[in-house]
């Protein structure tokens, strides 16, 4: 109640000042539009138009590494009728799911530590610096650690713990997910930390004062308020991991063809651009379905109540 009473006069104040200087405010906003036009031009030309062209191209027909205008659904039909497409989608979704789940679960306690247990940002900055160590460098690192002649296998052999290198360490789903988790962790952490920052420590203390256990506070206080940032960090990690085409290529072995890799190959080696474009939009559609599904599941589990809890 207190909060509401305090905030109302402020809202009235700001409205009053708006009407007072209407002329001035309008001029300021108008100059904002002028200033926005160069970046807007860039975004429209190099982002919006290419994205629309990609959609249009998915209805065209292919000539090797080029295209001919048409209005055909054959690319979609071809993608959806090939069993390889579903296999690749299944692998991509698994990669995305496990990576997002593990990254979120592992990063959550660290985010909690950063926000509520320590005042310094050292841990966060250190994690972010590792994020800037190239993605490719980290794929390479895991390849040289997990490889048949890699650090782990050679050490195990040297110590006599195994007779033969462990084959499943590299070129496997395990290797891909481990590497993707390593790549995504700092990113997931950043999103979770910025979400938790909005939840004041007072709420946690109030909950404890009222006799709630740590687990109750987590489920009934933190989760309902943090669910938005948890969902967004899960989804971002999911989309980036599921659409990745480099880690599966370098660490996934032969049967780890993800949709991202299939699409990339259409543009790099196969040369059927319209088919690749159609697959890309199908993949986007699947991502949206996953997002809707995730929200539905959370709502059913009562973990994502309406807006009233956090506004």
């Amino acid at each position, binding site marked *: 109640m207190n909060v509401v009473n305090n905030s109302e006069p402020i809202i009235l104040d700001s409205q009053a000042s708006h009407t007072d200087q209407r002329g*001035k405010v309008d001029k*300021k*906003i108008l*100059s*904002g*539009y002028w*200033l*926005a036009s160069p*970046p807007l031009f*860039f*975004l429209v030309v190099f*982002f919006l138009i*290419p*994205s629309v*062209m*990609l959609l249009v191209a998915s209805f065209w027909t292919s000539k090797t590494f080029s295209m001919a205008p048409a209005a055909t659904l054959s690319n979609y039909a071809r993608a959806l009728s090939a069993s390889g497409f579903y296999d690749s989608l299944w692998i991509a979704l698994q990669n995305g799911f496990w990576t997002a789940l593990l990254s979120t679960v*592992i990063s959550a*306690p660290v985010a*909690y*530590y*950063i926000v509520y247990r320590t005042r310094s940002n050292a*841990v966060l900055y*250190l*994690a972010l610096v*590792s994020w*800037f*160590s*190239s993605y*490719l*460098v*980290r*794929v*390479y*690192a895991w*390849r*040289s*650690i997990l490889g048949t*002649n*890699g*650090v782990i*296998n*050679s*050490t195990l052999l*040297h110590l006599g713990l195994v007779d033969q290198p462990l084959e499943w360490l590299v070129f496997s789903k395990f290797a891909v997910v481990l590497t993707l988790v*390593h790549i995504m*962790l*700092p990113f997931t952490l950043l999103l979770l930390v910025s979400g938790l920052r909005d939840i004041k420590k007072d709420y946690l203390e109030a909950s404890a004062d009222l006799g709630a256990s740590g687990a109750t506070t987590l489920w009934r206080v933190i989760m309902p308020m943090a669910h938005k940032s948890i969902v967004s960090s899960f989804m971002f990690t999911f989309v980036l991991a599921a*659409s*990745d085409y*480099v880690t599966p290529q*370098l660490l996934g072995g032969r049967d780890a063809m993800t949709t*991202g890799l299939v*699409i*990339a190959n259409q*543009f790099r080696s196969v040369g059927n*651009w319209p088919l*690749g*474009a159609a697959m*890309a939009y199908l993949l*986007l559609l699947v991502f949206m379905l996953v997002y809707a599904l995730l929200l539905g599941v959370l709502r059913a589990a009562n973990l994502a109540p309406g807006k009233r809890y956090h506004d």
Partner: protein
Amino acid sequence: MIRLFTYLYMFFLYAPIAIIALFSFHASASLSFPFEGFSTQWYEALFHSSDFMTALTNSAIVAAGSAILTTLLGTFSALALMRMKGRIKAVFAFMNFAPIALPGLFLGIALVIFFSLIGLPRSLLTVIIGHTLFTFPFFVESVRSRLEYFDLSFEEAARDLGASPLKAFWLVTLPIIGPTIAGAAILAVALSMDEFLITVFVTGSDTTLPLMILSMMRRAVSPTINAASVFMLVVTIAIIVIAGLVMTLRRRRLELERAETAE
């Protein structure tokens, strides 16, 4: 408990990087223990390779080009966002962020089709455009939160005193937002140096540092790749540390100057 977990988390993040750094100094070509002594031969081999020097030059050109373009466009965006309100501000902010809400793969293939249809041959220029699309949203995001607190009445005061809009920007706004802009610009350099998900598609025959590492990785595992990776890592981390220093030092100096003039 939770502190220990955090330390383990940091160990997991840095151990693989430490291991490749260690083996980049290995005396033998093997990438496994037992460690057979230190040598800088892989770095010497790297710096004597003309492929590496070409890739490094290309990466530097692209990073400089996309950072300049990003800074120009991003500063316009930041100035615009300071003046906008409500729904229009939200829509414009979303548009600024949108390119990185989609995976790099989508941007890459969308640009390939676009460049091909408008007949622009793929070159370092198209790489610069691709990178700008990727670094621009990060630039705006990192500048935005700091500029939320910028008081536009400073600028208005300068205008009321007869300064032209350009002069008001140059003499009033820029000195205040400068450190933030500079820090974000250096961040753009670091992001561009590492980018390859889009680069793979939008480059013609030019290689960049990450592309060179990627093609080396396809061929074989060798400590030269470790050396190249560590080199790239050191460059990126140095750039980020410089960005951090620029942002904090400039702010400190401004605070000091303000304190002095107050006296």
